[in-house]
């Protein structure tokens, strides 16, 4: 028997075989029926490598993991907790009255702070000292916010965020223009809110992609996992993983002033589009993968301008409306244009940072 035969047998046996390889193996086996019988026998065998961990040990391990988590969540070692509670209870009756007064004052203060805070919320952004990070076309970046949240910012985008998330705040807020992929760190009772010109996204610890470029005719929030609530024009949408909410502008006029009141907006909930099991259309940009599905050349050109940091002019109106589908992983602008050119022929000219297409 040849080495190739053995390799194919092993691949088949372990489930690491392609369709072509399986066909190849079947040809071998047809020529050697005795191997075929043996392969059938082989298939009936089960192997267990055994383990040193019994079911009860696994149970004890599970208990230990839960205890460690408990300790971590309460912020103190698990062993200390009971002692402290006792001390608190013992001290309670003696100064209970003074304690109650104190608590009432604290409550009133809290309400007052709450009112002031809400007032701040109503006039968002401007009053708060915010840091700003912006990416120019052709550049991407990632930022770690103080609360453990990570944001990947796509090209031509701006994120404004507080330098520190104040402890007393019961909310974390950032402002996005453009596209960002958020890995939000969960904090109990402190939702994370992403404001864009069309929607407010309330996050409870999750991974999501928000796209809101001013020069595109739609904006969207796509949920990768976790849970979010998106508010558009006063309406709340709860997203499940792999769902997204899209707001499409009906006319292309940029709604500079009256943002939420623009009636010419259409809102829809749609499933996230998968390129493959592991790659979503919405988040492919993070992996330097440019994916486009049935996109007009005009819309695609806008993205390419940001992606490569160039200016693209399409002179032919018919060409502007021709549609493209495809995927380009980490290719140069020249390569990409030659790929597009193979789908729909056109002439192009690249000069420094400018591309003319006709």
């Amino acid at each position: 028997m040849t080495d190739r035969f053995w390799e194919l047998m092993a691949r088949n046996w372990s489930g690491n075989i392609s369709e072509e390889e399986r066909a190849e193996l079947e040809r071998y086996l047809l020529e050697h029926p005795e191997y075929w019988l043996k392969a059938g026998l082989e298939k009936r065998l089960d192997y267990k490598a055994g383990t040193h961990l019994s079911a009860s040990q696994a149970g004890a391990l599970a208990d230990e993991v839960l205890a460690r988590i408990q300790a971590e969540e309460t912020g103190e070692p698990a062993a200390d907790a009971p002692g402290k509670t006792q001390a608190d209870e013992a001290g309670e009756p003696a100064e209970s009255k003074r304690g109650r007064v104190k608590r009432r004052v604290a409550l009133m203060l809290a309400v007052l702070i709450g009112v002031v805070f809400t007032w701040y919320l109503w006039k968002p952004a401007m009053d708060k000292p915010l840091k700003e990070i912006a990416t120019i076309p052709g550049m991407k970046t990632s930022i770690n916010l103080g609360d453990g949240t990570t944001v990947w910012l796509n090209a031509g985008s701006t994120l404004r965020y507080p330098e520190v998330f104040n402890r007393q705040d019961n909310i974390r807020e950032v402002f996005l223009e453009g596209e960002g992929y958020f890995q939000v760190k969960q904090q109990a009772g402190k939702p994370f809110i992403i404001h864009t010109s069309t929607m407010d996204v309330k996050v409870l610890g999750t991974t999501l992609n928000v796209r809101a470029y001013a020069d595109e005719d739609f904006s969207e929030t796509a949920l990768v996992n976790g849970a979010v609530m998106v508010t558009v024009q006063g309406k709340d949408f709860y997203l499940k993983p792999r769902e997204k909410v899209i707001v499409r502008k009906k006319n292309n006029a940029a709604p500079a002033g009256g943002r939420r009141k623009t009636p010419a907006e259409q809102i829809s909930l749609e499933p996230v589009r998968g390129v493959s099991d592991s790659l979503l259309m919405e988040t492919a940009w993070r992996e330097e993968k440019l994916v486009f599905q049935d996109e007009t050349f005009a819309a695609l050109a806008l993205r390419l301008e940001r992606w490569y940091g160039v200016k693209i002019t399409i002179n032919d109106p018919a060409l502007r409306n021709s549609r493209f589908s495809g995927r380009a992983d980490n290719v140069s602008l020249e390569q990409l244009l030659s790929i597009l050119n193979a789908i729909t022929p056109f002439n192009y000219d690249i000069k420094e940072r400018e591309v003319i297409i006709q």
Partner: protein
Amino acid sequence: MPQPETAEKILFQYVQQLERGDQQALRKLVLHFSPSLHRFACSMMGNMEEAEEIVSDVFVKLWRQRANLPAVNALKYYLYKSVRNTALNYIKQNNRRSAGHYNWEVTARNAGMPTPEDFLISKEQLVFIRDAIRALPPRCQEIFMLVKEEGLSYAEVADLLDISAATVNVQITIALKKIWKTLDPVLQLPTS
């Protein structure tokens, strides 16, 4: 056989519950995965107590990561990878590495649909096969276990053990050849 699909479904539920912060779901996942992860950790550490610590660390990390869990079908590999990274950290601190020891058992599904060309695999035969596997080099046993018992792909095992996919291919072929040889006598014993 609906069994594997149901198991997958239950796992999927646990993962969803875990994403929502359900500690009991985490407990179920520990019970489900810890024996095989512990075995793998043992093979890297050569020490049961440290292996337990590593598995415990891995699940605490999984809890912290619950907002960003991998897809259910990738969870096992994710956990293995996490065990490996954690174990390597331990090893870096203590500067040692040891080969695993496995307690193989082999069973055969003799029952089922007997066909004219069906052959019975006897108990003696199974012991024979088991001993053949136990005689394989430890590294080969480890690869064999990850591919055949845990169902990880060549690429995943290669990544996990820091070897090439070609090496995985070679080692699996070696294991297959060894087991293949022990099956010769079985073929001489056709059932009625």
